[in-house]
């Protein structure tokens, strides 16, 4: 990395190009800002029609091997779908379901994969339950536990920030089991105590799950020998897809700023002609461009050992910060209107706080990177 002569190269496949185009058009049609605001207000967590349409496009199985009903592509192709969704602040279980499928692929038993992956490709909703009330970003500092007795596992503890849990057919939760981190499948019918969380990003449906009182068969455990690697893989996959959401979001925030700066007048001039607004908007653009380059390099390198991890962490760091900056300025540059709920700036700012808070902010990833690179 520190060899300044090794020029990193982004690769972009035909599949990525096609998916990016399809997804860009899809999001422009299906997720105009009016729809996003309707989704925030909606009682149901999910638009079933939209979800079925996304399943029909094959988006839930992009990174699932063909033997399980997927397209056999990679997360690099998922990125091209998630980025435009981020731009439009779409709130769907696509990312949660994709990550759950990745968990199954990384550590699921044959039976688990054969049962669940085809269902997911067809539209079943799955989600991960990794966070806990401590708020710590470490995925292995777990308070929740599973205890075995006979063929049954008894679960205890609390999992937080479980996306779309109320709609999910399957939750995969991390727990401490015999002193180690483990992943365990919980089916819809086994959940007995879930609470909708009040989260800053109102496009999200996030739940807290109380595990106390849940028992599952021992066969619900994912392969213990693969769990540590699976958690590392999931963390990177989550960072990659969050980076895509944040990059897209940054672009959306910039569009909101630019639109206002081109049409709003103050002191008889378009406010976009003032350098005090124009130049920081350019800075937001430059940050977005840098983050986007890191994003697509992370997509290129994903899974390629330490170089892949470095690329993902850099993408997460740059994209989180880019969205934070652009959306913070979006509020400010709208002046009084920016202070209202009606202004779209706040939607992006809320998404930005979400993206920084989940799976580590820029400083967190720089600290990890410094141990790898210095």
């Amino acid at each position: 990395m520190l060899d300044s002569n090794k020029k990193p190269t982004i690769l972009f496949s035909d599949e990525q190009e096609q998916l990016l185009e399809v997804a860009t058009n899809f999001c422009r049609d299906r997720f105009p800002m009016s729809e996003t605001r309707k989704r925030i207000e909606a009682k149901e967590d999910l638009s079933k029609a939209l979800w079925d349409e996304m399943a029909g496009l094959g988006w839930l199985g992009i990174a699932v091997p063909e033997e399980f009903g997927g397209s056999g592509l990679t997360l690099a192709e998922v990125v091209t779908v998630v980025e435009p969704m981020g731009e439009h602040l779409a709130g769907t279980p696509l990312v949660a379901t994709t990550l759950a499928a990745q968990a199954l692929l990384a550590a699921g038993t044959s039976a688990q994969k054969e049962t669940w992956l085809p269902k997911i490709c067809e539209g079943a909703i799955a989600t991960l339950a990794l966070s806990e009330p401590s708020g710590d970003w470490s995925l292995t500092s777990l308070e929740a536990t599973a205890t075995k007795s006979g063929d049954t596992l008894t679960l205890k503890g609390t999992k937080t920030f479980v996306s779309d849990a109320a709609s999910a057919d399957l939750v995969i939760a991390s727990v401490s089991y015999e002193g180690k981190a483990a992943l365990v499948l919980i089916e819809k019918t086994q959940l007995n105590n879930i609470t909708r969380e009040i989260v800053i990003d109102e496009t999200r449906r996030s739940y807290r799950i109380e595990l106390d009182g849940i028992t599952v068969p021992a066969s619900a455990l994912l392969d213990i020998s693969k769990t540590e690697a699976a958690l590392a893989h999931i963390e990177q996959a989550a960072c990659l897809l969050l980076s895509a959401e944040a990059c897209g979001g940054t672009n959306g925030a910039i569009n909101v700023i630019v639109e206002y700066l081109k049409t709003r007048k103050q002191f008889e001039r378009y406010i976009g002609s003032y350098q005090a607004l124009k130049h920081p908007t350019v800075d937001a653009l430059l940050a977005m461009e840098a983050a986007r380059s890191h994003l697509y390099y992370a997509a290129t390198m994903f899974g390629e050992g330490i170089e892949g991890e470095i690329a993902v962490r850099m993408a997460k760091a740059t994209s989180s910060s880019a969205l934070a900056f652009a959306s913070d300025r979006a509020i400010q540059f709208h002046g009084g209107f920016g202070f209202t709920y009606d202004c779209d700036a706040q939607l992006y700012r809320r998404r930005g706080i979400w993206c920084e808070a989940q799976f580590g902010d820029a400083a967190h990833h720089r600290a990890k990177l410094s141990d790898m690179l210095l």
Partner: protein
Amino acid sequence: MSTSAPSPAELDDFRREVADWFTANKPKDPGFLLPQSFMEVGTDEQFYFLRDWQKKIYEAGYLGMAWPKEYGGGGKPQALQDIVTREMVKQKLPFMTNTIGLNWAGPLILNMGTEEQKKAYIPGILSADDIWCQGFSEPDHGSDLGNAQLKATRDGNEFVLNGSKIWTSLGRHAKYMILLARTNPNTNNKYEGLSFFLIPMQIPGIEVQPIKKLTGEYGFNQTFFTDARISESCLIGKEGGGWAVAMATLAFERGAVGGQAGGHSMMSKHVSEVVALAKVARRNGKPAIEDPVIRDQLLQFIIEERSQALNGSRGRIKALNQERPGSLAMSGKLVGSEYQRRLNQFALSLQGSNAAYYVGDPLAYEGGLWQRSYFNAFSATIGGGTSEVQHNIIGERVLGLPKS
């Protein structure tokens, strides 16, 4: 107005008395998250709680202590009031909700009002019986106050109001408004067509519509005027002389002149609270405060926060303000409001994944106070002249740079 200066011993005694009184009389936890300033008062329960609190302070003799006795004040030295104000900040007690009355309308009326106006308005300002709101900004020219378009058309000894004002906090609860309106649309100089009024709010033709804030809460309003009629006695200053009155009034907000009524009006966040948060929040299994990068950032905030306090102290030493006399006073609002925004943002970054909780979630740190406080911080970087406009003002008036 004030009697002879109290001795240090008298001040010390008073300080103790005040501390004891507030300790004994501090309000109980209302069971809901209180706002941090009058601009954030979003629910009736918040409003009545805060109004009662101000009334209680006033009745105890701890508000308007230095204002003239004949208008309901205490007629005592300002130093005593300052002690009270500091004690309220120290004990983190709720702010005085009739902020516009205490900090803008009150000083304005005391300075420029008729004897009649003083008698009519000042007591209710102090007791919070008469809530005031302000009608300066308009929807289409937020930063460009001189361009105000709300029409006040003379009709005999009345004016007829038509147009709209925005950001009228407490507008639904207000009895009066300070209003900047255009009495003459045909002047060459746009500033010369403006007049300044003290108007009643509860009259036909005035409608107040709440604005939902970016926090999801209420607190601001848009006020619509449709053929609302007011008497010419509502004028303060001359007809056509409103700009000068407005500028004098704004000077109270920009910090150039202290609000003498006393009581604090804004519960700012302090870095000490962020340090406390950093001790609780976790990073990589350890308290966040052990992270050297976080420590470095905390120190930057500590140093900045002390800068502001020291600027206040240095601002009172004339010999240390010779070269650019207005510099410290004019920059206080910009420096303070941007500091608040960044401090709140940093506080969020300490909370790990829990930064994504919001007001009302049981797992949100301090009930989501920081999330809301970060959003609300924009009211100060935007309101009263955006930070960008403040930069212009300081560049032009303090440094003498050419106009943009």
